[in-house]
């Protein structure tokens, strides 16, 4: 049971709009959105930000899901981990590739490209110490990704440090994020 009340049928207009956006994007209103609903401003801005993150972007959604999974593992936050694992597979990642996110298997896994490994190094280092993401990590990233993609990837990693922490703290369970076809 979440630490705060969840709202199923909001009366606040801002929350109603956030619920509509969530329903359109996810196919339903995720439990985290319902748990944020006692605070209309936070419910609205966080919902719209997460909707923007969880779709095709400058980086493919399939790879973004692997980045999210590695981020959640790296910081020990497991809100929606299972749902993202299912989503990663649904978007075309093989079970082996998802499994190789475990510890440092991705470093030698044949399922990961050098471009993807460079991102996993970024995820891992941010999890250890964001102050110590040194030039060697960025130089390797720049060989494969442009500035907009690197902004998106850094934003995604840090967003899911946030979302993982918030979901875990509020005690929200999210068995399935998307009930519509992705």
């Amino acid at each position, binding site marked *: 049971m979440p*630490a*705060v*009340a969840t709202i199923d049928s909001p009366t606040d207009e801002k929350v109603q709009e956030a619920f509509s956006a969530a329903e359109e994007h996810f196919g339903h209103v995720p439990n985290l959105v319902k*748990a*944020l609903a*006692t*605070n209309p*401003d*936070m*419910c*609205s*801005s*966080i919902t*719209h*930000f997460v909707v*923007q*993150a969880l779709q095709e*972007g*400058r980086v493919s959604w399939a790879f973004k899901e692997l980045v999210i999974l590695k981020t959640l593992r790296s910081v*020990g*936050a*497991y809100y929606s981990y299972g749902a993202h694992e299912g989503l990663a597979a649904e978007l075309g990642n093989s079970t082996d590739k998802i499994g190789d996110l475990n510890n440092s298997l991705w470093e030698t896994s044949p399922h990961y490209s050098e471009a993807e490994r460079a991102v996993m190094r*970024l995820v891992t*280092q*941010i999890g250890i*110490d*964001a*102050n*110590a*993401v*040194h*030039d060697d990590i*960025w130089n390797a990233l720049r060989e494969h990704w442009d*500035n*907009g993609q*690197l*902004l*998106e990837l*850094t*934003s995604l*990693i*840090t*967003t899911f*440090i*946030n*979302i*993982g*922490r*918030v979901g*875990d*703290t*509020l005690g929200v369970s999210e068995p399935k994020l998307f009930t519509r076809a992705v």
Partner: protein
Amino acid sequence: MAQLPYIEPADADPVTAQVYADAEARFEMVLNIFKITGNAPEIAEKMWQIFFDILQEGPKLDWYTKELLILKSTKMGDCLYCVTQHEVVSARLGVTEEKQADIVGVEYRRSEHYTPAEVAILDLCQHVVLNPEEIPSDVWAKVKEHYDDGQIVEIVTTIGAYLQVSKFGDALGVQLEEVWHGHAPVLFKHEPPTSKAAQHHLDHFMAQAPA
């Protein structure tokens, strides 16, 4: 040096230009952390709305209380950029230097400057940062003595958002703007960074001539 270019207002696309205008209206300048998000305007627009919502007197929670959470959560991550700026912002809102100093470690628990309500949410903040999977029931009970659900959502999301933005800025090497040069961070004076890299950043910052 930052790892991505700062997109200056003159070079910003219309979406980013609007974000910059909103930021300048709120914070008197376009900070470097905003400028770096100009590399992906569609992200900047949605991301900064969360912070615009937090950094104001809220219908649920006062800005002063949110600044305490911001100082605590970003200090725990050794974020020089956030701590420096929010020491100044929180001081403007009435947080004294003595109170700022007592936020480090668990000093706030025995400090005369903190109310029981503030102690309760700073204890929660430490758990959110360190281990949100194992928050003891007595920590929650004390928070719920003082705050309702809508306020708790704002407390937890403020902590989460500042974990996000502090790591975002630090990972990208976003630099403090010249206007902050000469400010000696109170929190780091009372509790040095635990990260060697953060200590290096602090030493470099302190060596800058005042603006």
